[in-house]
């Protein structure tokens, strides 16, 4: 495989997750599972997070990453996966929202 391939790119979230976990770090993976309206990142986009809050990748244009990272650190501790939902209209459940007007569902799981 040549080194320029996208999958061997050191910015690829799933490659980063493998490297981190293999190196002994606790890791969570967040995945965009559903989008409505003008969501910034497509379904399947991923963010990897370690227990110290380091992260790679994206699930939005930077709008909700902070909240996802906070949740991910909890998920790493408990091991229980969570489905998070973010949207402009959804003011009660989450303080952060998407400025673009879209809504997204993000699944956060611990890498076992």
């Amino acid at each position, binding site marked *: *495989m040549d080194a320029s391939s996208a999958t*061997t790119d050191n910015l690829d979230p799933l490659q980063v997750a*493998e490297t981190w976990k293999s190196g002994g770090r606790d890791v969570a993976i967040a*995945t965009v599972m559903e989008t409505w309206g003008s969501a910034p990142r497509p379904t399947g986009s991923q963010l990897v997070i370690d227990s110290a809050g380091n992260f790679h990748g994206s699930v939005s244009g930077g709008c909700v990453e902070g909240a996802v990272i906070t949740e991910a650190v909890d998920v790493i501790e408990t091991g229980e996966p969570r489905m998070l939902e973010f949207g402009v209209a959804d003011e009660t459940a989450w303080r952060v929202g998407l400025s673009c007007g879209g809504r997204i569902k993000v699944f956060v799981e611990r890498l076992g």
Partner: protein
Amino acid sequence: MDLVLLKELNAERAARRAAILITDTADGAGQLVREGDEMSGALGEAIGRAFRSGKSGLAEIEGRELFLNVHVPPPRLVVIGAVHISQALAPMAKIAGFDMMVIDPRTAFATEERFAEVALHAEWPEDVLKNQPLDAYTALAALTHDPKIDDYPLAAALRAGCFYVGALGSRRTHAKRVDRLKEGGLSDAELDLIHAPIGLDIAAASPAEIAVATLAQIIEALRKRELAGGLSMRAA
């Protein structure tokens, strides 16, 4: 998902093979499906659709909410011949999302000046393809008309199961090409897969129009392609 599964998925992706990671959203349990795996029922149908479209999404299957994350290698376009059509094709292919490479051993054609924005190899196809082999997510368009240059990569593309194989040239030129490739051991069924004359029939006249017709035909082949089961049957 656990680390073993993630390693398997990353190995498939690094090898440019399509795979789907299925996650049960109730508990995070994961399953890896490779293209060509036998899957029946509603899940099998959902998997088939996901491989064809390349789109990830949630599916309700037998009371479970499953997420199908499709990992399809990015499509590549290998063009044999640094010719006028290839020059027109380069910006179009880039806009359409293809990673394009041009191979032509004739150094008068293969110049940086003519091809500033694509990966250009002024070498023989056999030498380039040795290091960067063709695969099922690669389209190959042979545009030189020259058997010395075109024949090897055409045969290699058919053997590698490229999702598209096209060759420029009149029906007469192509008939002679088919005879040569048949002597090289390719079957009629394999040779029928070559799109020739190249491009959708839109009565394209200029090099740029032939480039449009060719790119449209490549996109059609990509989106309507058979699953790997069919491809591997041909390779057998």
